[in-house]
């Protein structure tokens, strides 16, 4: 069956990717590529995670920064309180992100369109305000973190984080791919096109949106969790920076949300451009480029890069029959 062949090809690709990443951490001496690569991987994870709710379901989440920041601070709080290892920090962040997704979803997913989007910004600001007033994790001033010793086979913490983020990317992509090819994906696509018609055709829209919001939230928080150790520092205004929201949204929409590969392409393209620009010009210019690209694409190429590559690319193309 072609379905099975697709699966084998996909997981073989994943294995090659992870082996390559691992080999790179063992061979390349210089730490810089890992610093930059980590950021690109993080953007891939964020964009793919965002597209589960924003792309498949069509609910534009401006609150990526809320989930990201919650991931960062779950890791920070846990690390400060118990010194828990990185894996535990990430798992805890995913759980908290999922719970937050559930709460946010219950509160906001009955709202349509722009109301939902504005509500997600509101959630982000409110959580950020609480963290700013939370002394234990340093309040508005932020908190310094001392990285623990690195684990074998890695010889530097950044290389390890790079590998960990690569695994998070794989998880995000695998989950997005699963949803896309399952009944859930079809239901989300239906409610995205027309929520009332979907309901009347038997789609449990609220439940599906909640599931999408929880999964998306868990993945975003998980992708954010290692950021504390990456920067060795966390403060509310960077952890809850709205630029995570623009990036995730822009990379997804620019890549195209009809297929999981879209956000991956968008994030690789824009993420690497950003890395180049912020080294060569300035970090403001890369936000400008992101904004302009976003506007150009939503106006001129509604289906994103994958729409340009393959006109009429369909959500279920290449998926389960």
């Amino acid at each position, binding site marked *: 069956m072609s379905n099975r062949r697709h699966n084998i090809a996909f997981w073989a690709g994943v294995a090659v990717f992870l082996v390559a990443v691992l080999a790179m951490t063992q061979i390349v001496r210089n730490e810089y590529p890992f610093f930059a690569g980590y950021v690109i991987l993080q953007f891939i994870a964020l964009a793919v995670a965002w597209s589960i709710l924003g792309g498949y379901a069509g609910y534009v989440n401006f609150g990526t920064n809320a989930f990201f920041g919650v991931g960062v601070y779950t890791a920070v709080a846990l690390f400060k309180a118990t010194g828990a290892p990185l894996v535990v920090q990430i798992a805890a962040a995913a759980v908290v992100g999922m719970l937050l997704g559930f709460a946010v979803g219950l*509160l906001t997913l009955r709202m349509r369109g722009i109301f939902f989007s504005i509500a997600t910004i509101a959630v982000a600001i409110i959580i950020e305000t609480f963290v700013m007033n939370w002394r234990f994790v340093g309040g508005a001033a932020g908190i310094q973190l001392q990285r623990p010793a690195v684990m074998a086979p890695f010889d530097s913490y950044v290389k390890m984080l790079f590998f960990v983020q690569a695994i998070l990317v794989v998880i995000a992509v695998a989950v997005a791919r699963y949803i896309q090819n399952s009944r859930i994906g079809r239901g989300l696509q239906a409610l995205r096109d027309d929520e009332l018609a979907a309901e009347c055709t038997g789609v449990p829209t609220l439940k599906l949106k909640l599931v999408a919001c929880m999964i998306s939230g868990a993945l975003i928080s998980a992708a954010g969790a290692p950021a504390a150790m990456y920067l060795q520092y966390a403060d509310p205004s960077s952890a809850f920076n709205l630029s995570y929201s*623009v990036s995730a949204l822009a990379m997804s929409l620019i890549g195209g949300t009809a297929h999981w590969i879209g956000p991956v392409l968008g994030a690789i393209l824009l993420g690497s451009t950003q890395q180049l620009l912020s080294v060569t010009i300035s970090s*403001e210019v890369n*936000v400008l480029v992101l904004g302009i690209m*976003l506007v150009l694409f939503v106006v001129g190429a509604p289906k994103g890069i994958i729409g340009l590559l393959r006109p009429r690319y369909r959500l279920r193309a290449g998926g389960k029959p």
Partner: protein
Amino acid sequence: MFSMDLLLGAVVLGVLLGCFYAAVSVGLSISFGLLDVPHVAHPAFLVLASYGVYQLNETYDIDPLLAGLAITPLFFLFGLLAYRVYYETFEKRGTDAGVRGIAFFFGIAFIIEVLIILQFGVDQRSVTATYIGKAWRFGEYRIPIRQLVAFAVALALTILLAVYLSKTFMGRAIRAVAQDEEALRLMGANPVRIKQFAFGIATAVLGIAGALLIIVAPVEPTLDRAYIGRTFCVVVMAGLGSISGTLIAAIILGVAESIVLTLFGASWAPAISFAMLLVVLAVRPQGLFGR
């Protein structure tokens, strides 16, 4: 600690602040409330107007209010242009307008923010005028005159706009297009032209509102983010498109912010409008004065 006097002072300042919030929100009440355009970039245009006023005030020493008035035609044109692009790319084609329309304005907001940063840097900017820096005292109360000026102009602006929308021919046409586009088309009017004009007006008002913003306090490029909460809170609480509701909702927000600021301190203030917005959306999405 808590005292009646302190509370009274907070309420008075809150009312002044509230009228100012009405002036910065009233444009959104037209563009989003009446025309149903997901105008997330409204606060970014507001901050842009403040920087325009700053530039005129800085180079030609023009009074900020006059400077605000001077840039209204330019903002009117911005409004026409923004609506035209939005209409041609999203409204007209209809498909998938939701997601992309929102992303479009979100992108515009970010572009404006970054352009301001590139031009003016991230530092705070303020204007000079004779009424800035002085205060009125009554007994132990102290009310800055800049607040009073902003209050008076804001109130006048909001009332003027309310009158415009209810009494003039064009104003009524704008309200009509919001309610029943088809009926207007049958009467031989072009609804798109009317909406475009309305969007122009909504944006032009930001010239004055931007002047008030920089008169009340110094501005910085990312100030629009806080005003996303405030302006949408006011417009949604008012009930979409209700101008008189806008004034009342804005005063409620102003008083709430002012009281929280007095009791709990400044670090909680930014969350107030967003929290109120969430509560209104969750509990009474049609707004306090909506149907």
